[in-house]
């Protein structure tokens, strides 16, 4: 595993004829368009957070080729167990922007009723199970879903993302080991973006790569250039075919870089150099894909400008609209813990709501 990660795209944007068909011209344009939107959102939501209009944001700037490469290689009903930095998967599946913004804002139209922080998405209709903060917990879920898929012969493949930091958790071990033992129809993608908050990759493991762990689980493993969309699609297609055929799971380590801060609560200048960032910036996945598109004769400056302008406008308008929705009703706080409200919680709710109705000092909206 000392060879460099697998690549397809040349420096000039070219690719061998053998791999040109991995994505159609339409798919390349769809990806670029979605990447434009992704960057607009990253920029605008960061701004919104700074203005105090949004609680929290985490950018995926720099990791888009990995994220879109994965999304583009799956069937629409394949569940994607997100870590949290994979907005692109929602965009690829064309989840309506308002549904995304309502979650981020946590308003009354949020499908999850404003119960979780921004980014903790859940869209069952689009096969996006619920995101949670504890890292790595989603990995055994994907092993289990993939087992069910194989057992039922549904043809579904469960995909899970995690960061290279998260691969240190015990859940990573049990997930990959179980998936191997049970030949789950699952794919595990490590976004190796160099950092877990401030902690560099070198602290996570003494091994040469994370992909080598696959052998220890008796499953297929690849390291791929995570900023090379076609390379990602290539290993993903193979992995998906294998999983769908019941031939077992795959571990993919995508080598990329977290261009931005860990989150809006973080400032990376405290722990890494501008030179490092600049070096990775030269490998920007959007720029590389754009060069490829040009090489194919697609996506000229005009198309890009049109996409940018169009999305900017839609994003601004949609955000404004979503910000107008009120917060969820107070009663929703007490619903859906179990299928029915427990007597304990019922008593707590009744007492609280009664007081709330009576109270004059509160400025909290009373239901």
């Amino acid at each position: 595993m000392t060879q460099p990660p697998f690549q397809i795209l040349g420096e000039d944007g070219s690719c061998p004829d053998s791999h040109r068909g991995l994505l159609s011209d339409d798919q390349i344009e769809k990806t670029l368009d979605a990447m434009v939107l992704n960057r607009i959102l990253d920029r605008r939501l960061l701004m919104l957070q700074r203005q105090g209009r949004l609680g929290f944001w985490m950018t995926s700037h720099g990791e888009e080729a990995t994220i879109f490469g994965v999304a583009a290689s799956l069937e629409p009903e394949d569940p994607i167990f997100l870590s949290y930095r994979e907005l692109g998967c929602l965009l690829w599946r064309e989840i309506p922007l308002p549904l995304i913004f309502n979650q981020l804002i946590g308003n009354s139209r949020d499908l999850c009723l404003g119960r979780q922080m921004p980014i903790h998405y859940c869209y069952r209709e689009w096969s996006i199970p619920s995101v949670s903060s504890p890292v790595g917990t989603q990995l055994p879920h994907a092993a289990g879903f993939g087992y069910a898929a194989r057992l039922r012969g549904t043809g579904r493949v469960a995909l899970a993302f995690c960061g290279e930091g998260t691969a240190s958790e015990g859940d990573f071990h049990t997930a990959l080991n179980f998936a191997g033992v049970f030949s789950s129809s699952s794919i595990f993608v490590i976004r190796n973006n160099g950092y877990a908050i401030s902690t560099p990759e070198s602290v996570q493991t003494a091994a040469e790569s994370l992909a080598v762990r696959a052998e220890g689980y008796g499953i297929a493993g690849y390291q791929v250039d995570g900023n090379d969309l076609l390379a990602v699609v290539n290993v993903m297609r193979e992995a998906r075919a294998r999983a769908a055929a019941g031939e077992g799971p795959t571990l993919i380590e995508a080598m990329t870089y977290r261009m931005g801060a860990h989150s809006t609560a973080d400032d990376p200048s405290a722990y890494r150099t501008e030179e490092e960032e600049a070096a990775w910036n030269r490998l920007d996945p959007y720029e590389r894909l754009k060069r490829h598109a040009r090489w194919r004769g697609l996506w000229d400056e005009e198309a890009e400008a049109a996409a940018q302008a169009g999305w900017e406008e839609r994003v601004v308008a949609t955000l404004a609209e979503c910000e107008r929705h009120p917060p969820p009703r107070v009663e929703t706080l007490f619903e859906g813990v179990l299928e029915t409200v427990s007597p304990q919680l019922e008593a707590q709710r009744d007492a609280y709501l009664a007081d709330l109705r009576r109270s004059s000092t509160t400025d909290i909206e009373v239901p």
Partner: protein
Amino acid sequence: MAETGTLNMIQALNDALDQYMERDEDAVILGEDVGHFGGVFRVTNGLQEKYGSERVFDTPLAEAGIVGMAIGMGLAGLRPIVEIQFADFIFPAFDQIVNELAKYRYRSGGQYAPRVLIRTPYGGGIRGGHYHSQSPEVYFAHTPGLRVVVPSGPYEAKGLLLGALECADPVIFLEPKRIYRAARGEIPLDYYTLPLERARVVRKGEDITLVAWGAMLHTCQEAAALAEGEGYDVELIDLQSLAPYDLRSLVRSVERTGRMVVVHEAPMTCGFGAELVAAVQAAAFDCLKAPLQRVTGFDTPFPYTLEDHYLPSAERITRELARTIEY
């Protein structure tokens, strides 16, 4: 009419699992040694043979993996039934249970609600020392989003397990292993369910309310009999479901008796008895004739040689009953 048979708890649980597996094609049993071997306590005996090794199977030795995988299976529409070999070994899966399983329905706004039931033998009385004796009910009862159910005999074991399997919520089903074989009884062989969340009055009485669950119920029965010998009339209640719990039945009883003793094996501090005492004193304050009391395990790890001192005995309970009545 409906046939009955004399079964112990293991057989009753096995019967419940068998009948449920028969009815629900989505049901899958997984855990350590539950397959061919039928579980170290034999609760899943014969089920792999009957339902095949894709529906009843051994897993690698990793509780976090078992529960995590079960959640994923549940998200895919299966109905996983997990065995954790001993409740003492559930802690590697604690994060998956409290941060994932318990919160999945709520946090997804009801879009997903993986139906995972976790069965696990718990409690002392088998000379198991620190790690084959613990009673972890509070860790789960304190966690919103979980049900905690504890049967005290074969009839309850079968009916509550089937009730729990029909229910859409995640359930921690704690099986009092001390009475796995000792608690035998004649129970219906047909399919039946018992409602969750309902306490069961085991014995009517006027002087004091005694509350327990699981194996301690039997010790309390002894204690109630001893107390009767001393002239005290004890009302004994089997709580059965700890989360949610049936406060109304307790309060109704204490309003009559004015006194309550709660018994459990887990350490006293922050044990489930504290919750019952706190809730009952708030709801029945004006009827109380004496402080509500707890007879429990001590605030130490569960011991080996001195287990009989650690576990509440009928004598210890009887003394507390008398003391509270004579207060």
